[in-house]
C-alpha cells in the first residue's frame, strides 16, 4: 500500500476500502471525504461503476475523484472522465505524480 503511505505523508487521513462496494459503504459512513482515489479493476463493483454510483448521488456531485489504474488506453481515460472522474493516473506512478495530480485538484500539497 505505497499509495496509502504516501497520502499519509502528505497529511491525509486515509480510509482504505477493498473494492468498490466496500468503498461506497465506507464513503457513506464518513463524515466528510476530501478526495477519493479509486482503482479500475476490482472484484466487487469496479472503479468505473464506483465512479458512476458516487456521481449519481447529489451529495457527492463535487467530490474530487481520481482513478489510479493499470488501464492505459486513451479510451479508458475518456471513459473514466465521462463517468465523472476528475483525474486519472496511469500505473506505474511515482509519489511526485500523485502530488502533482492532487495539486491539479486544488490541494495545496
Amino acid at each position: 500500500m505505497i499509495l496509502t503511505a504516501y497520502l499519509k505523508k502528505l497529511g491525509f487521513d486515509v480510509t482504505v476500502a477493498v473494492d468498490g462496494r466496500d468503498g461506497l459503504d465506507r464513503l457513506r459512513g464518513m463524515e466528510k471525504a476530501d478526495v477519493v482515489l479509486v482503482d479500475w479493476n476490482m472484484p466487487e463493483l469496479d472503479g468505473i461503476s464506483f465512479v458512476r454510483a458516487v456521481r449519481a448521488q447529489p451529495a457527492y456531485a463535487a467530490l474530487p475523484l481520481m482513478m489510479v489504474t493499470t488501464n492505459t488506453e486513451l479510451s479508458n481515460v475518456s471513459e473514466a472522465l465521462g463517468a465523472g472522474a476528475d483525474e486519472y493516473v496511469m500505473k506505474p506512478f511515482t509519489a511526485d505524480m500523485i502530488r502533482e495530480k492532487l495539486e491539479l485538484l486544488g490541494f495545496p500539497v
Partner: protein
Amino acid sequence: MTLRAAMSSSDFNYIRNLVRGQSALTLDPGKEYLVESRLDPLARHEGFPSYHQLVATLRFGPFRDLHRKVVEAMTTNETSFFRDARVFAMLAKSILPALVAGRSAERSLNIWCAACSTGQEPYSVAMLLRECQPSLERWNIRILASDISRNVLTRAHAGRYNQMEVNRGLPAHLLVRYFEQHGQWWEIRPEIRRMVEFRETNLIQPWHDLPGMHVILMRNVLIYLDLETKRTILERAGRLLDRRGYLLLGGAETTMNLDDSFEPVSFEGAVCFRRRQT
C-alpha cells in the same frame, strides 16, 4: 561494480571551462561524478573507448560538433507539463486576461519559452491558450520556444511523450482532448504542435530575430548559470519584454538583487516579474 580512477582534475577542468564558455553552465568541483556519468555514454556513442579519449580529442582539435555535444550532454532537461500548477493558474487567471483586455486593439501576443527542454512547457502554454478560446479567436499569437540543446529540441518538435511524461502534471481532460495514442507513445495533436515554433537559441549568445515579447517564460535555467550571466540575461530579457509584459521564472529564481528594473508581483499564490514603471 567496476572500480576505476576518478576523473582527473585536468580533464574535469577542461570540461568545466568548455561548458562554462559555451553555455555559462557552472560545474562546481565535486561534480566529477556527474560529468563522468554524462560523458561516458556520449563517448561510447561517438566511438571512443572512454570519456578520457573523448576529452583528449576535444582538447587538441578545433571547436566542432563534438564540443557542442559535450555541452549538450551537461544540460539538465528535467521538465513536465504544467510544471508548478500555480504558475499556470496565474497565467490563465491573471496574466492572460490582463493581456487580452490590454491588447484588444492589437490582437496580438508574443510568448517566449526561453529554455523549453523537451517541449512540455510551450505545449502547456499552447493548450492553455486553446482552452481560452473563443476569447482569443482571430488573435495573432506566436509561441516561440528555444533551447541550447538540439537533442531536446528534436524531441520537443516531435511532440511525442511516454506514459510517465503524460502522467505528470497534465490534467486528464487535456490528455484526452489534445493527445493521440500511438502504441506506447502519446503524441500532441497537430493543432497544438502547429502553435509552437521551435528554434535553437543559446541564451548567452545574441538572440536573433526575436520580436518584442508579452510573456517570457525563462524557468529553471538561470539557476544553473553564474551570477554575471544571470544579470546579463535578465537585462536583455527586460529590453525584449513589452513595458506591460510578464517574466516568469522558476520557483527558486528571482530578479531580486540581480536586476532592479524588475519588480515581483504575486497572483494566485505564484510570483511573476514586471518591468518597474518609471
